[in-house]
């Protein structure tokens, strides 16, 4: 699924970084990508992020006007990834499970 890129053309954002996040299954990677992509980038002119799922890997391509901007964006994405991963660990494949008190 093509990632959503903001209006700012990618060339003007010199700082680039790609993050590859491995998942157990391709479905999980796709779910992660589709969970992260809807939220708009606040400062479209300073930063662009594309989300893609290639097989079992989530591909995050960051372009920004400075390294700081990218670092902030990455920490934000990783925060959300934590929730996504925790959800996957807890609930993936357990739609038919009756959870009990540990």
């Amino acid at each position, binding site marked *: 699924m093509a990632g959503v890129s903001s209006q700012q053309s990618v060339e003007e954002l010199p700082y680039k970084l790609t993050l590859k996040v491995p998942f157990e299954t391709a479905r999980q990677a796709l779910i992660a990508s589709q969970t992260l992509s*809807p939220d708009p980038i606040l400062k479209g002119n300073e930063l662009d992020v594309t989300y893609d799922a290639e097989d079992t890997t989530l591909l995050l391509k960051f372009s920004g006007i400075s390294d700081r901007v990218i670092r902030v964006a990455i920490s934000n994405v990783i925060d*959300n990834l934590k929730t996504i991963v925790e959800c996957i660990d807890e609930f993936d494949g357990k*739609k*038919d*499970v009756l959870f009990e*008190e540990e």
Partner: protein
Amino acid sequence: MTVDLDKYAKPGKGYYIALGLEGSANKLGVGVIKHNLGQLSTTNRAEVLSNIRDTYITPPGEGFLPRDTARHHRNWVVRVIKKALIEAKIKGTDIDCICFTQGPGMGAPLQSVVVAARTLAQLWDLPLVGVNHCVGHIEMGREITGADNPVVLYVSGGNTQVIAYSKQRYRIFGETLDIAIGNCLDRFARTLKIPNEPAPGYNIEQMAKKGKHLVNLPYTVKGMDLSMSGILAHVEGLAKDMFGKQNKKLVDVESGEPITAEDLCFSLQEILFSMLVEITERAIAHVNSNQVLIVGGVGSNERLQEMMKLMIQDRKNGQIYATDERFCIDNGIMIAHAGLLGYRTGQTNELWNTICTQRFRTDEVFVKWRDD
């Protein structure tokens, strides 16, 4: 004419179950609700299967910041969802839809919760339903109290609105022109360094009960709206004079007794609640109603409820409705309930349409499940 709420019922399934996620402010709430087929009524009530809440508490004198609140919600959301499923004794397969607060509220906290909602919805292949936080309060209040068409006073940390239903919209009749009442009380609690446990507003209420002398504060109602920032500045000024460096001794003119912090809390409540009751009364007269429903965290304040009751009693068989803290304080069950009503009238949100917004006015919602 009543709206058909079963157009989207699953064949062979005699009920609906919805999971609701709330995190627009410092309370993270997950609730599971069950509706049977057919119209909701006194004989066919919605059933609360679970209603779990975890509140992000800050040290005395400090408010909750969006970033820290979002971190709290992220840490707890999966565990609270699990706890809600356990207590409700349901499986993913029982669930019809996952509802989430789409706004209004704080950006980062809303986003931290919707990430969990999107992930779970995709994992279990369930539809998502975006809910207006305030409509959640209204619908839950109506369901719990049985008030069919009340004028609603929505008073919380982030909102102060008087709302009345008309032609499939919850119309805003009057509202704050600056800060919300909960915010005003919380900020004064911080000025007095009152603990935030269980909630600053609750602690202000306990102190106000011990207050005796009324301190003069500006009364700022403007037509159907009201403004509170001036009152807050005024009462904070008094507090700083009394407890700051000069610790000026203020004295009550009539009794000669010194003014205490309790008196300040008492006076602040009296002036704020008088204004709220006045604009509510104006809306009630305008739509010729005799039912008042108070929702939102500040609605659990007994003095506000008492004053509202005194006002509504003056109207022919006037009736006041309020819910206890399980429902009037932000919770997940209200989002599940309002979301399920939306789902049963055909509302679902595709992933691209699950972006949360800080600004989401109550009257933007098309109330498809009502037709009175």
